[in-house]
Each structure stands twice: as structure tokens, then as C-alpha cells.
């Protein structure tokens, strides 16, 4: 079975098809892109149906020699974690294409180029989660930057090129640190029975604790930049502010997940000891991110920046869940990655529609949209509710799991983090009040409500948010085995109830 390669090939083929189309026929280009993403989504779901939930081994494994000289393989394989993230990516892709139907028009280059980039990016998004060869992972991890860079710099607004450069330099810097670590791993593997980049083989390397710590940092900093963790976050608000909504969705929804995914798949697997060593500091950073991101979100005047900062807070939660080293924390974190993608997608897409209609992303410019564009207002409100983790919506489940999971081992961190939910109420309700409530302010009187296409685009997102809120078990059943496997690998057990007798 070569499911994964197929999944990666489809969007690539799509991009070639798009490239073959005439520049002038933008409609056809868009339709082709949409069709491709839909097919990919269908294929992914088909593959997911064949996934054995309780099998903690990698599945759909593929392995072909790529650069034997360095012992590099084109090796793919997924566990529950990867599957969930790939599902997330491939479901988001068509949504983004459909939702951002017209956002490619303001760009420096043709609509065609936009969709070529998007489709190429989708291929890489699948590959980065499916790779089981560290080198392959790194290659995609870095190569991904380029399409995003052009998407931001070419189709964004405002200081787009500056933001794109900042994003790229930041990520490249992290990537190069990771490269140094990878080189070290490679050399060590050579010293211990043959050069290889196979994840499993590398995870059983012998190395001194100092080495392990250093290499861990190499990886972790790269991921901490991606997943923006305080204080490495400053690129995100700029990027999100300048990028088109669709790009932002892919950026925050999928690309940044590579960071948190990498923490689990690479930091924890390759450097178990170092992970334990650094857990205390990382947890502190995570908690800071949660509170800091929330407070800065409250302080933002620009809608897109605000959403970006909420995400920084959310990534804090995810990181905390990962390093809490409990099955609840881990499953919660993974589920959180999935849910965050959709609540942020909803926020960005609806927010993007509001902004494109109003021609401004300054919150203060909006007012009383509730009365003018009820549907849009409701969608934004719902997205906001999901972002502040309202019980009954998907993100509540994941957030609560993370908190409970953390509390059982690190009560203090969990307690401080929980204060984040009050701040969340503020950073959502303040823009909701300013933009949707109150009297309709000048400039908003004749904004149009969502059209059919936009409704169709946002419907699945909202549906996922609501349904997973009440019935997350299907996903959890996929995630749990993988999560508890990682925990077990690290030699952790969930804390047993203390009955407070300590």
C-alpha cells in the first residue's frame, strides 16, 4: 500500500494541472485547485478508515532508498498523532481554497501562481507529518518555508514583504540549529553501527547527557519558533497581520503544528533524558505563553494580530500538555492541535471576510455588525466561543484535558494556566462587543452578509467544532494509543489518585 505517497502525489499533480491551465481562465484554475483538495481530503478519509486504532506501530509504512550515500531513505509512516494532523491539514485545504476564493486577486502574481503554491504546500504538509526519516523531515520542514514565504510576501497586505522576510529568517535560523543537531545525530549513528536517519534507529543512540541536552535544544528551539513559544513568537503577529486569511489559516493551523508535532515526534522520542531535564523550564515558558499571549491579545487593536496572539496562548496550552507527561495531557495536546486548527480557521476566515468587506482590520472601525450582517456576526461569535473553549465546543474538551493532565503532575502550572480562561473571555468578548455590538458605526451600514460560497466554506468548520465538542471519542480513540505509547516510552505513568493524603 502506498497511501501516503499517493496523498502527497495528488496535490502535486493538481499543481501541475493548474500550471498547465491558461493564466486568464481564473475560474477554471480555482475549480481545479478546489477539486484537487477535495480529492485529497476524500483520499485521506479513505486511508483513515483503514487505520488500525489500537496498533501503536507506524502504519502505511513506505521505505525507499533515496541517498544511500548518507543512508537517507524516503521513509513514510503514520501513527495516530500523524494521522490526526494529516486529516486536519487535508480537511482545511479545501476549506481555505473555497473560503479564500477571491483573496488571490490583490496579489503581485497571478491567481494561478497562488494555487500552485497552495497545492505544493499541501503536498509538503502531508509529507512533513508522514516522514519517518529525520533527513526527509528536515528537508520538507525547510522547503515548506518557501511557498509560505511567497504566499505571504506575494499575496498579503501591508508590510507583507517585511513580514515574510521576518518569518523566513526566523524559521531558517531555527532550522539551521536543528540541522546542526541532525548532523551530530548522523555522525553519531555512523559511529554506532552505520549512518542512518531512521527515526527508530536514531532514538536508540547512546549519547552523553550533555550531548543529548545540546542536540535537544537544537531541535526544540526550531520547534519553539515554529509553534511560537514565548519569547520566540514575535514573527507570528506580523506574519498573520500581513498574510491573507487563507494563508494565515494554513500558517497557524497547520505549519505551526509542525512545531508541536516535532516536539512529540522528535524531541521526546530522540532525547528522552534531555526532555525530562528541560521539562521544568519548558513548562514555565508554556505557562508564560498562555498568559502573555492572552494579555497581549487583549491589548491588540488589529483583529488579525489579536487572533495571532490568541494562538500564541493556545500553543502554550499545547506545549504544556505535551510536557506534562500524562496521558490526559498528551491526548489533550494532540486533540488541541486538531481543534485549534479549526477554531482559528473559523476566526481567521470570518474575520477575513469582515476585514475584506470593511477594508480595514482595525477593530475600532467595525461596530454593530450584529444588526447588519447577522450570519457573519454569528459565525464570528461561534468561532470566538470555540476559541475561549466554551464547554460543548470542541476546544473545551482538549483544553480541559490538558489542564487536568497537567494538574495531576504540575498543579501550580495548571492553576496559573487556568486563569487564562478568564483572559480568554476578555480577548474574545472585547472584539465581539466592539465589532458586532453597539450601534452601527459609519462605514458599516451597507456591508453585505455571507454569500452562499462563504456559508458552504464555513459550515464544515463550524460543524466540526460543534460535533467534536459533544462527541470527540472517534478522534480520542485514534489519539490515545499513540499518546500513551509515547508516555510509556518515556517511562512515565499517570499519577494515581492521592486522596489528598500527602
Amino acid at each position: 500500500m502506498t497511501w501516503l505517497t499517493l496523498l502527497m502525489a495528488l496535490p502535486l499533480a493538481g499543481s501541475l494541472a493548474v500550471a498547465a491551465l491558461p493564466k486568464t481562465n481564473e475560474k477554471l484554475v480555482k475549480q481545479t485547485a478546489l477539486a484537487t483538495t477535495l480529492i485529497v481530503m476524500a483520499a485521506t478519509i479513505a486511508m483513515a478508515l483503514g487505520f488500525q486504532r489500537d496498533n501503536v506501530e507506524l502504519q502505511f509504512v513506505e521505505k525507499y532508498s533515496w541517498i544511500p550515500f548518507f543512508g537517507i531513505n524516503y521513509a513514510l509512516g503514520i501513527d495516530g498523532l500523524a494521522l490526526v494532523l494529516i486529516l486536519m491539514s487535508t480537511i482545511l485545504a479545501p476549506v481555505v481554497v473555497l473560503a479564500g476564493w477571491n483573496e488571490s486577486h490583490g496579489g503581485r502574481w497571478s491567481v494561478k501562481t497562488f494555487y500552485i503554491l497552495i497545492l505544493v504546500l499541501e503536498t509538503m504538509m502531508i509529507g512533513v507529518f508522514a516522514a519517518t526519516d529525520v533527513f526527509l523531515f528536515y528537508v520538507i520542514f525547510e522547503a515548506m518555508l518557501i511557498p509560505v514565504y511567497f504566499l505571504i510576501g506575494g499575496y498579503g497586505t501591508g508590510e507583507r514583504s517585511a513580514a515574510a522576510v521576518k518569518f523566513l529568517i526566523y524559521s531558517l535560523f531555527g532550522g539551521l540549529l536543528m540541522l546542526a543537531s541532525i548532523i551530530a545525530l548522523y555522525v553519531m549513528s555512523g559511529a554506532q553501527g552505520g549512518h542512518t536517519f531512521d527515526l527508530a534507529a536514531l532514538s536508540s543512540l547512546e549519547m552523553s547527557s550533555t550531548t543529548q541536552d545540546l542536540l535537544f535544544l537544537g531541535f526544540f528551539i526550531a520547534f519553539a519558533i515554529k509553534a511560537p513559544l514565548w519569547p520566540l513568537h514575535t514573527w507570528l503577529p506580523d506574519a498573520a497581520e500581513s498574510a491573507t486569511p487563507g494563508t494565515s489559516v494554513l500558517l497557524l493551523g497547520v505549519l505551526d503544528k509542525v512545531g508541536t508535532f516535532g516536539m512529540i515526534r522528535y524531541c521526546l522520542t530522540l532525547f528522552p533524558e534531555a526532555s525530562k531535564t528541560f521539562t521544568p523550564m519548558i513548562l514555565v515558558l508554556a505557562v508564560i505563553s498562555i498568559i502573555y499571549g492572552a494579555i497581549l491579545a487583549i491589548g491588540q487593536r488589529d483583529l488579525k494580530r489579536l487572533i495571532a496572539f490568541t494562538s500564541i496562548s493556545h500553543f502554550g496550552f499545547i506545549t504544556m500538555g505535551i510536557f506534562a507527561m500524562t496521558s490526559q495531557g498528551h491526548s489533550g495536546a494532540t486533540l488541541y492541535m486538531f481543534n485549534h486548527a479549526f477554531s482559528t480557521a473559523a476566526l481567521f476566515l470570518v474575520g477575513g471576510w469582515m476585514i475584506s468587506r470593511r477594508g480595514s482590520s482595525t477593530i475600532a472601525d467595525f461596530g454593530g455588525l450584529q444588526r447588519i450582517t447577522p450570519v457573519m456576526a454569528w459565525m464570528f461569535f461561534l468561532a470566538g466561543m470555540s476559541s475561549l473553549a466554551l464547554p460543548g465546543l470542541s476546544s473545551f474538551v482538549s483544553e480541559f484535558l490538558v489542564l487536568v493532565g497537567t494538574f495531576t503532575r504540575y498543579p501550580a502550572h495548571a492553576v496559573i494556566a487556568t486563569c487564562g480562561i478568564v483572559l480568554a473571555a476578555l480577548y474574545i468578548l472585547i472584539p465581539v462587543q466592539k465589532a458586532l455590538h453597539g450601534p452601527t458605526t459609519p462605514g458599516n451600514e451597507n456591508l453585505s452578509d455571507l454569500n452562499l460560497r462563504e456559508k458552504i466554506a464555513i459550515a464544515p468548520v463550524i460543524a466540526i467544532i460543534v460535533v467534536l465538542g459533544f462527541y470527540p471519542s472517534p478522534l480520542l480513540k485514534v489519539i490515545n494509543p499513540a499518546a500513551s505509547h509515547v508516555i510509556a516510552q518515556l517511562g512515565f505513568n499517570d499519577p494515581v489518585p492521592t486522596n489528598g493524603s500527602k
Partner: protein
Amino acid sequence: MMSSHSLVYLIALPLAGAAILLLAGRRSDKWGHLLATGLSASSFFLGLYQLSLMLSRSNEQRPVGQKLFEWISVGTFNIDAGLMLDQLSICFVLLITGVGTLIHIYSISYMSHDPDRRRFFAFLNLFIAAMLLLVLGDSYLNLYVGWEGVGLASYLLIGFWNQKLAYATASKKAFVMNRIGDMGLSFAIMIAFATMGTVSFTGVKAAAEHTSTAALTAIGIMLLLAATGKSAQFPLQAWLGDAMAGPTPVSALIHAATMVTAGVYLITRSNFIFDAAPTAQLLVVIVGAITLMFGALIGTAKDDIKKALAASTMSQIGYMILGAGLGPVGYAFAIMHLLTHGFFKAGMFLGAGSVIHGMNDEVNIRKYGALRKFMPITFATFGFGYLAILGVPPFAGFYSKDMIIETAFNSGGIKGIILGSVTLLGAGITAFYMTRVMILTFTGTSRWDEEVHPYESPWLMWLPMAILAVGSVTSGYLLSHGNALVNWLSPLFESHGEHDEFLPPMVVSGLALAMVAIGVAIAFLKYSRSDVDAVAPSDVSIFTTIARQDLMQDRFNEAVFMRPGQLLTSVLVKTDEAIIDGAVRGVGRAAMGTGATLRGVQSGFVRSYAALILIGAVALIAAIWVVVQ
């Protein structure tokens, strides 16, 4: 526990209503309100049916449960979407759906002129569903869902007219302050899971016995925090007054009869924790005592009829909380007062609504007066509610409130005396401000503007008022007749036998009535003799001013939380820009600078290049020299 299959419909029906009305949109404008009312009513009848089933079973057999599906399950953290209906929850189910339905009916007419009536009914149904989930959930986490669900509904309904910015702000305030409470609830859940490994009511109850007092106390205090948020108790009471921004039926249903009593439910539901955590229990009592005085004092100064009622709600819930804090003996009475209060306060709010309705949305009681003639029915129903809240026998309040006062006295020692006197004093003040409202609204001379033409509300509005009035008259007697409610609930609370009586019941009732009489008397002297001026006098004692400003609660919050918070925010925003991002940009600039400086080496003169090579050579030789030595 017996399992039932029909519990879910209690919630499903109104939830479906909300969903249909919201999704169908304008299409359902014509019939939306009818559907909503019908669903709420049917949910009520389902409740009655469940009650009948329950009555047909023996005490132990009465609780029934229903497991819907596995909700969250990770490692040992397993939460089912499960419901539980027992003697306690059935009381709430009936109260919520019963009063709820009445208010649906009332609103049909009250909101008939509002273009968004359908949306209003959708929210009402949403609220009913969430509130039912709150009282039916079989674990703290399920309760949590309902808990925030009612918070959401309340937010939406307070802000129903959010085109008025003040109203939008009020709704936001309510939501945020509630969230602080919710934080307490989630803490409680986390501690429970960490210490007992379960969060279901039955599980926690079982585990509570062999759990350290410290843990239980922590849980208890956190639950109390949650309760203070939802039930507008001290120190999280500030939102309730502003919440009156919502349409009056909302105030009646959510901010008087049902949602605000959720805190009482939570505490009684968690009796097994509080019984084992005396410290937490003591805190409950203290909070209750403070709030009942707090509310009462605010009530004395309010000219906005709804705000006055809100203050009284706050104070009455203070009574309930206090009652619930008195342990096994108190729980039942707290619930009883909760139920009776549900009737008379809802009734009075609806009355207030009908008055406002008849007075062109005028809410200032100073601009009322002599409405008795114009709105006889409203006057009558409001009057019954008035008598009930005063606790005049045989009206409902008499039974429930006296029980609490009595239990307070009997709680023993100095504590008993203090609590007892506080509750007594509270009763007196209540009598004063309610009488004030009564007089200024219905008696005396008319003070309204000439274009106002008061009229009695249509039957759709007065019918619910009437029914509630009947409740305010009879409910007390019915519930306490032969200790009906106490016995009904007794299986849930383990009672520690009878307390020694500090004061005999008769004495307590006597004292209470005396206090009430004094309160009424003062009010009469102050307001019905001399004419009241339509604008609030400004030359008033400092106490009045403070009371008018809700005892400075908002000022306090502003000074202590809001301003510093805003300051912190702006500072952090600047820091992020200047320092963190500045550092990043600094690195970039440093690199640029280095490059620009090093460029200087490239002077363009070939001789300097040669010199460079020469220097390099010399350096190498020097290095070698070092190596060799």
C-alpha cells in the same frame, strides 16, 4: 441506580427548539415563539411524568440515571455523557420548566413588538436546555457544560438589545465575572480528579469518606467560588444589577428564579464534600450572610424597579446560601426557600415587567405612583409576591425564610446568634425596601409624565403572573406541610439527628414578624405620608449615596482589577514591541552594522590589500613561532 431512557428528552426538546429557531432564521418568525413555548411546556410535562414515576418508587429506588455515550475517555479520566434525576434535581427540573414555560407565555405578548422575538425565544429555549443539563448532569464535568451553557444563554439574553452599548457591556461583564466563578469550578474538578480519580457525583461521594479534609476543603472552597459567580454572591455579585439590561422576562427567569440559584444547587449537590469540610462550610455561611445584608442594603436605595428587585434577589439567594451552609439541616430549607423564591420573585419581576410595559418602558419608581387603579391585576399579583417575600404568614416566604432564620439561630453558639440576628435584620431591611417599592409604584399620587397612559397588560401577560401569584401564596405551605420537602430530600443528605433548639420556632417567627413590621412601618413613615419627588434627591446621607452606587462594588473592581489590568496590558504590549521584538530587530541591525564596518577593510588601494596579505603572513609566522616554542 435505575436507568431510564427518557431523561435525555427533557433536554433534547428545548435544545431542538433553539437549534430549529436559530437555523431556520426569519422563516420561523411566525411560529417560532409557539414552538419554543410548546417545547418548554412539553419538557415540563415530561418532568411531571418523571415525578409521577419517582413517587411510584420507594426512597432508595427514586434516583434514575441515563448513560448517553462515552464523552471523554483518556487513561483513567473517563467521563460519560450521563444524566441523573434524583429527588433534588426533579425539584429544579419542575421549577425551571414550570416557571420557564410561564415566562415563555408571558414573553409571547411582552416581546410581540420586537422584530427579533424569534431569536429571543431561541435563546430562552437554549437557556432551558442548558439549565436542565446543569441540574441533570451526573458528574461535575457534565454540570460544567450546563453551567457555562446557562452563562452563555444569560450573556446572549442580557445583551439581547446589544445595539445599546451599555447593554452589551453589561452582558460582557456578566460573562467575565461568571468565568471567574467557572475557574473555581474547573479547579474543583481538577482537584477532585487528582485526589479521587473521579468526578462523577456518585464516585466523589463514595471517595469523599477516605479523602483528606484538606483536599475536600480545597474542593469546597473552589465550589463556593463557582457558586458566588453564578449566584451573584459576594465578592462576585457586581454583575447582577447590570444584568437587568436584559428584557424583563429574562430577569424573571434567569436572574431571579433559576440560573442564579445554580450556586445553591451546586452546594447542596456537593453536600458530601461540605459536610466533611467544616472550614469550607463556614465560608459558605459567611458569604451568604454578607451577601444577604449587601443585597438588602443596596435594595434600600434603588429607584430602578428592576435593580431594586435584583438587589433583593441577591439578598434572598444570600439566605439560601447561608441555609445551605448550615449543613444537613439547612439544605432542605435552602431548597425550599429557593423554590418559593422562584415563585414570588419571578412573579414580582413579571409584575415589574407589566408595569414597565404599561409605562412606556419607564423603570424609575419615582416616576410611578397610584398605579393601583390602572393595573389592578398587576397590583394584586405583585402584592402577593410582596407579602410572600416579607414572610407574612401564610404566604410562601413565611415558611421558607423562617426555617432558615430558625436554623441559623439553632446552628449553635455565638455563630448561631450572629447568623440569626443577621438573618433577622435582613428580613427587616427587606421589608423596608420592598414596601418602599410597593408604595412608590402603586400607591400615593401619580408622578408619571403626561404622555404616559398606564394600562393593564393583556391576559397573555397577566395569566402567568396570576399563576405565579398563586404559587407565592401556596407553595410555602405545600412544601412544608408535614415536612414534605424535607422528607423528600432526606435520602440525599445524611442528617445528624435533631439540633438542640436555641429558640423555639414560635419565638423566631415572632421576632421575624416584628422586624418585618418595623421595616414596613419605617417605609410607610418615610414615603407614604410625605409626597415623593420624581427626581431622586441629591442632598442625601453618604450612606444613601454609597448604597445607590451598589456599595461601591464597581468602583472597587475598577480600581483594584480593571485599571491595573489595563495598565499591565498596555505595558506588555509596549514591551513586546520594544524589548522582545526589539531584541530580534537589534540582532539584524547588529549584523548589518558589522558588515558595514568590515566593508571598510576593502579600501580599494592595492597596497593595503598587499599589506593585508603581509599581515596574514606575519600572523601565521607568529602562530608558528608559538607552536614551535
